[in-house]
């Protein structure tokens, strides 16, 4: 309900130059029930939305297209990391595009946060802005999830030298330099850690921005379980 209201209020604003220079990249895998609403909400701020359909078996691609997104389709399921890289590569083909935002398909991100991140990127000498759930009190995280995330943050700090306050947050904004230099070889969920180490390897200028992650019943049912952290760790270590 609150989300709906926010979309209405933003729709009246004229679309600024920065927003029309931005591509929103949404990795999409079997999210047919929600993707139309998510894309419509996102397009009220960013007119350019590309969904990378990662071999969905439901109507995700058609729903995204109906909402006005461009759909790039993987012939087989490759994982979220590959979807992100495909989306970025495709959007880099637009010579007018300067900013690239990665956004989740399940509706847990706030497009207003994404706009603030892009504005930060446009006004400050930065290459990457990463969303963090722990910079303000808006996001409610369960104690177990918080413990797992904090462990991941500590691990990430040690392995990459980047002092981030959050790990595995899917909302990120890149400029052209960052979007083209970040290599993603981890197909599955470990790509989030890989992006962080790529930021440090390519010496990109980064900042964090507070974001609000809404855990709906839908996203909770689909989202990463705590068990998946075991898979992520093994993906990172076993080459």
């Amino acid at each position, binding site marked *: 309900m609150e989300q709906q209201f926010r979309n209405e209020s933003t729709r009246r604003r004229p679309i600024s130059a920065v927003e029309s220079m931005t591509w929103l990249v949404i990795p999409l895998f079997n999210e047919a029930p929600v993707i139309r609403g998510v894309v419509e909400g996102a397009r009220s701020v960013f007119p350019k939305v590309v969904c990378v359909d990662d071999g969905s078996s439901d109507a995700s691609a058609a729903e995204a297209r*109906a909402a006005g997104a*461009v759909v790039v*389709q993987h012939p087989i399921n490759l994982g979220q990391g590959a979807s992100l890289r*495909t989306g970025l590569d495709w959007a880099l083909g637009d010579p007018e595009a300067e900013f690239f935002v990665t956004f989740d398909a399940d509706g847990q991100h706030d497009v207003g946060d994404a706009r603030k991140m892009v504005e930060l990127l446009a006004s400050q000498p930065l290459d990457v802005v990463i969303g963090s759930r722990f910079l303000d009190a808006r996001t409610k995280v369960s104690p177990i999830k918080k413990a797992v995330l904090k462990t991941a943050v500590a691990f990430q700090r040690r392995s990459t030298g980047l002092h981030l306050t959050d790990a595995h947050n899917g909302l990120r904004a890149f400029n052209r330099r960052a979007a083209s230099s970040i290599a993603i070889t981890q*197909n599955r969920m470990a790509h989030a850690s890989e992006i962080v180490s790529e930021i440090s390897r390519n010496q990109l200028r980064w900042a964090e921005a507070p974001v609000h992650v809404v855990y709906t019943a839908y996203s909770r049912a689909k989202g990463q379980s705590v068990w998946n952290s075991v898979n992520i760790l093994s993906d990172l270590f076993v080459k």
Partner: protein
Amino acid sequence: MDAGQTVIKGILIVVLAAFAVFLMLPGRGQRHVAIRRLVMVVLLILVVLAVIFPSAVTAVAHAVGVGRGTDLLLYGLIVVFAGNSILMQRRHRTTEREITILARQLAILQAPSPADREVADPAAAAEPEEHAEDVHLGEPVDNEARRNGVF
């Protein structure tokens, strides 16, 4: 007995360590393939010898401190199996990476180009009318000729 077992322990540890070193080596290419084939040939020869001279297996087993020939064969099987699964996993990952590159390239080639998506979109869509409307809402079409084509 215990002192004798150190021989087989030593052999097993050395062989497994050799696997680890083999995995660390960066080279794929000819040397790796050659080593793999040599190991395969040696294994086959050993198996043939074991079939012809069953008692020899027991003798070798006693020499390295293993009780029976079958136990020695079991040890050998485990070592070969471990090495093989490590190799298969490695090859699987390489294949996976190659398929990813291929599939991503295919996806980008099939998608409408971002520079002229106004033109490409309605053709790709199932409902062209709805899409024409989307184009209108989304981006102002700057190209004069293209506008004539769309509207």
